[in-house]
């Protein structure tokens, strides 16, 4: 195991804890950057999709993993970001460079405003409340037909940044790089949250509202802020999804997407940026993995391929149950264990990550 000798407080404040860690992430970024030279168009599209899901996942993670508030309505903010971005371009003629950040701001403000009356709700009630937002948004898109074109949907125009075209089909590599840029920016902002008073206020609200309050944290305001930042990032992901899909309508961002997003970050591992990315890898690549294994199996057994409807959701659901039962910390938790195993080899103990039982809180506040 690596022992880090910290020589200044900055060692705990900086992005990376030690040089080797920085090297690994730089290497990862370098690989991500040259990916278009290594992969074909199809797989670059899949990677782009994965990154967009990761951005959306990070948005939800700030709320669920960092602040401990459930949301089953985040597809609504994907929709708000997506529609705002495209409508600002189509109706007001704004360039993408303006409409994109504005879409984030609009989704963020919407999230913070909606959160205000909801900050008093907890657990299942909050989940139901946010679920209602998702349903409502679906209906609102249909009702606001003159603007949104209802169930027919809208086309996302090709992105033009200072004369450069970014299109999923015409220039997939460039589109990928743009999404990668946004993803990296969101990671940096996320890290900034974690290392500043804001992130600690989120964690305080997540772990104990009474004592957060006793520390001077305005719980309602902090929750609303978390909602706002979370939905702003989700809105940005929605805007990218719109451009990636090319055409979208009220159905594009239905409740299933909300649920899928939540399951994704649970499977990935709640409370970490890694978790959002691991979850996104599962969500984005699962359909391909299923297709490939189906081909393999039918090649083996012979006979034609049978498409099984709902197979994807079933596997996804089974994975979720598996993780909740055997690895509540998600893929990231498993990854930490495997890493520690190799770092400490042969001294790893099975109970190393077992948490001490918390004390009963039946007597809270007394």
């Amino acid at each position: 195991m690596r022992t880090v000798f910290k020589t200044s407080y900055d060692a705990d404040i900086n992005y990376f804890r030690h040089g080797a860690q920085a090297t690994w992430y730089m290497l990862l970024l370098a690989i991500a950057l040259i990916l278009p030279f290594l992969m074909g168009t199809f797989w670059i599209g899949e990677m782009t999709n994965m990154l967009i899901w990761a951005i959306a996942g990070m948005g939800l993670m700030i709320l669920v993993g960092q602040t401990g508030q459930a949301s089953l309505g985040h597809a609504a903010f994907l929709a708000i970001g997506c529609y705002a971005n495209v409508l600002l371009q189509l109706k007001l003629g704004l360039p993408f460079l303006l409409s994109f950040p504005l879409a984030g701001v609009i989704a963020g403000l919407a999230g913070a405003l909606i959160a205000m009356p909801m900050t008093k709700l907890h657990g299942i009630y909050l989940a139901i409340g946010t679920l209602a937002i998702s349903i409502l948004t679906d209906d609102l898109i249909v009702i606001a037909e003159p603007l949104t074109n209802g169930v027919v949907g809208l086309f996302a125009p090709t992105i033009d940044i200072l004369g450069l075209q970014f299109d999923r089909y015409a220039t997939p590599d460039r589109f990928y790089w743009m999404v990668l840029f946004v993803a990296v920016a969101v990671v940096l902002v996320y890290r900034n949250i974690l290392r500043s008073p804001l992130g600690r206020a989120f964690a305080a609200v997540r772990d104990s509202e009474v004592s957060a309050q006793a520390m001077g944290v305005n719980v309602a305001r902090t929750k609303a802020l978390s909602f706002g930042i979370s939905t702003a990032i989700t809105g940005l992901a929605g805007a990218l999804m719109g451009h990636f899909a090319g055409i979208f309508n009220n159905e594009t961002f239905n409740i299933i997407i909300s649920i899928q997003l939540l399951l994704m970050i649970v499977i990935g591992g709640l409370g970490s940026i890694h978790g959002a990315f691991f979850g996104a890898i599962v969500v984005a690549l699962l359909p391909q993995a299923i297709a490939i294994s189906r081909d393999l199996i039918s090649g083996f057994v012979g006979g034609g391929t049978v498409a099984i409807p709902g197979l994807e959701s079933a596997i996804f659901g089974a994975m979720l149950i598996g993780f909740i039962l055997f690895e509540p910390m998600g893929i990231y938790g498993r990854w930490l264990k495997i890493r520690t195993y190799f770092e400490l080899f042969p001294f790893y103990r099975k109970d190393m990550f077992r948490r001490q039982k918390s004390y009963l809180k039946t007597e809270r506040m007394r």
Partner: protein
Amino acid sequence: MSLLEIDNVTLRFGGVVAVNQVSFSVEEGEVFALVGPNGAGKSTVFNLISRIYEPVEGDIRFDGDSLLRHPPHDIAKLGIARTFQNIELFEQATVLQNLLVGRHRHRKSNFISELLFTPSVREGERRHRAAVEKVIDFLDLQAYRDKYIAGLPYGVRKVVEMGRALAIEPRLLLLDEPASGLSVEETQDVAFWIEDIKKQMGVTVLMVEHDMHLVSAVSDRVLALADGKVLSLGTAQEVQNDPKVIEAYIGGSDEPEREVA
């Protein structure tokens, strides 16, 4: 003027009068102990000061300013810090992060500058860290700095919670049973710390405690409560010898007279 004035405060939970027309005041610089049998209303007094509960009558003033005009999250900003009887730490965070939350009152940056982590935010983080390190040194928590609360033994959690309250740099520190569940040695540490908090840091301490050895050792004045009412006020010696207090412990409570010498 006293630092904290509890002025004729009453609070009911349904039929139970948890705090019944209680008045007392805590002077700046003293260690003031609240004692009394289980269910006497001691923690409820703390929760009233923290503004978790709204009294049905009476007033609570801190430095002459009525706390009832302030929302709960203002209390720390006014300079009142507290611990909880059943430890309310941030479980999924490290000791260091827990203590840093105590610095929230001293936060100068807004959320936008924090999202961008501007140089002034970094400067603030360094300052908060330096302040927290002083607390870590004071309470000897160095070995636990980067440990998650969820894995810490009970005794250490108690100390961390006290540290988090100290990180606030309060004028008044409320300690709810700081020694409950601690070993004799650990309780001795707590006694030393309370002495230092009072003498070196100049912080006023209001504490609830059942351990009368600790109470006698550190408190300047003691107030005995039973069934939400004030029974007796004086030095530890005087209160322990008050017939009304002895009666309350022997008669009214399911807990026998514990360590009342």
